[in-house]
């Protein structure tokens, strides 16, 4: 389906996703296509942003990648190992478990209310590395707290005794505890205030530099993605509809949806302006494979869009878009 050129996996390709699909069955006849033939690569040390509107399948995609969800079809290759065939139940035992970690969207929800910050941070070390005595663990926890800027005295606190920003730090500390090669972040700042958001963004930039991890950074805020990522993937209703270097996409969006997304970002300078998308999104349940997913909302929508699903095409070097009218 996808036309993303299957570039031969370079040696430094950390994650390679090919034709990944995930459908949820809603009833006997209805399938919800949450992720539909998605392909992309992440190189070692690269930060990739994933944007798209609510419900387009971002979380599903990363749950697939982090092996919290079984795939319907397609492959996920991590570190030259195919992971998509490992069952979710088995994956905690896999050596790659510690290679992919996730920072959750909601810092409150993702912390066990009955675990202290210390318990939470040391949990992956105890489970996946093992063989540490108490002193070692404490040292590691202190080190991690230091790394994420969490005051030591907070380590003994329970989640409800921490502020939002502090909880976010605990969540990040847990995710980086084992130096994962790939850190997936699911809207890590969307539950936080702007003031705290800025802190966390700086922390993430800093960590990336110091630990050399790859990021898959999910957000619906293009503004934030722009600050942190090298490359961007734009998703719409289960499909990647545009991808490319972040500045390139940001300044010259080639897909009408990306265009709308960018123009809708509020800014101090801009004045209210109509945005091009109207109407309601199409349903992800049993979508017609021959109709462009944006059809009906898209200002350019023409007959062709109703007959042929546009595929990703390279519109500029390393810049891909799936629109019949990309220029």
């Amino acid at each position: 389906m996808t036309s993303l050129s299957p570039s031969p996996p370079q040696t430094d390709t950390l994650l390679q996703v090919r034709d990944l699909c995930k459908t949820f069955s809603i009833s006997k006849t209805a399938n919800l296509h949450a992720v539909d033939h998605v392909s992309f690569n992440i190189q070692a040390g690269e930060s990739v942003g994933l944007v798209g509107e609510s419900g387009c399948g971002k979380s599903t995609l990363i749950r697939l990648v982090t092996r919290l969800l079984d795939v319907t079809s397609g492959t996920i290759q991590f570190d030259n190992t195919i992971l998509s065939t490992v069952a979710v139940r088995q994956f905690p035992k896999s050596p790659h478990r510690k290679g992919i970690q996730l920072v959750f969207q909601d810092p409150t929800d993702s912390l066990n209310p009955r675990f202290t910050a210390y318990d939470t941070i040391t949990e992956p070390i105890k489970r996946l590395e093992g063989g540490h005595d108490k002193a070692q663990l404490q040292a590691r926890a202190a080190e991690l707290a230091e790394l994420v800027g969490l005051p030591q005295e907070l380590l003994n606190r329970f989640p409800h005794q921490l502020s939002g920003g502090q909880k976010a730090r605990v969540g990040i500390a847990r995710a980086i505890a084992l130096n994962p090669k790939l850190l997936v972040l699911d809207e890590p700042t969307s539950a936080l205030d702007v003031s705290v958001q800025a802190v966390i963004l700086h922390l993430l930039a800093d960590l990336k530099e110091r630990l050399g991890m790859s990021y898959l950074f999910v957000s619906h805020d293009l503004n934030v993605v722009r600050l942190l990522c090298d490359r961007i993937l734009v998703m719409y209703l289960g499909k990647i509809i545009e991808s490319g270097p972040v500045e390139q996409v940001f300044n010259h969006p080639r897909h009408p949806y990306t265009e709308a997304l960018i123009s809708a970002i509020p800014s101090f300078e801009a004045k209210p302006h109509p945005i091009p998308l109207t109407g309601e999104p199409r349903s992800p349940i049993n979508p017609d494979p021959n109709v462009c997913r944006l059809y009906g909302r898209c200002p350019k929508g023409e007959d062709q869009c109703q007959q042929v699903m546009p595929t990703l095409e390279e519109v500029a070097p390393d810049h891909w878009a799936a629109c019949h009218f990309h220029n």
Partner: protein
Amino acid sequence: MTSTTFQHTRYVISENLVTFGAFALFLVFVLFAIFGEAIAPYDPLASNSAVALQPPSAAHWFGTDELGRDILSRVIVATRLDLGIAVVAVFLSFLVGSLLGTCAGYFGGWSDRIISRCIDTLMAFPLFVLAMGLVAALGNTVANIIYATAIINLPLYTRVVRSEVLVRREAGFVEAARLTGNSEWRIMARHLFPNVLPVMMVHISLNMGWAILNAAGLSFIGLGVQPPTPEWGIMVAEGATYIVSGEWWLALFPGAVLMLAVFCFNLLGDGLRDLIDPRMRT
């Protein structure tokens, strides 16, 4: 945590006099249960036909029964058995119910379907009749009364735990636990269950009162503990036949104490709810 819990407990108790009263009453019952024989003024089993059916007096505060036994002493000594039945029965159903409920809620699929079906089947029985049937079939011993009570409470616990686990199954911290390499069983035991526990506490205390009433009901239809063991329910049930002939104290005092106990557990449940309800916390 501990200190804030303690403060919070103190706060809830002092805030709510009714709950405070319930806690105090509960302590009294516990004392009776432990030191019953020592506190009781008479031997609860010693009959004395000379003083049969005496109304309350200075010598016998709660009066005497048809065999001249001191009702006060019997009521006090019965505390252990009654609380024992309630505690053990509720504990059993809690234990088994939580296990089943956690499995059903967490694993879903077939295990859920099978467990839920079994629980549905149990629920489709008129529960009191089921208890009667079980006690009648197994024999009316204390152990069997406990089993029967435990079995009929099982659906409650299984269902509540199941739904609580279902709510939390998708919670971030469970996924996080999976990411950090916890096995399924470990997630269930270490991450899910401890979080369900507080909610269950409320049910436990409400259920205790109900367990006592259940035992009393069994006594009334003759399936209670064997005589001459003092037990509130059987004392009320047997004393009830004396109400019309004017010997009201036979049923009234055990009934009042039984009511106090159930009452106490109910109020305690409310108190616990306040204690646990996150909205009440700050």
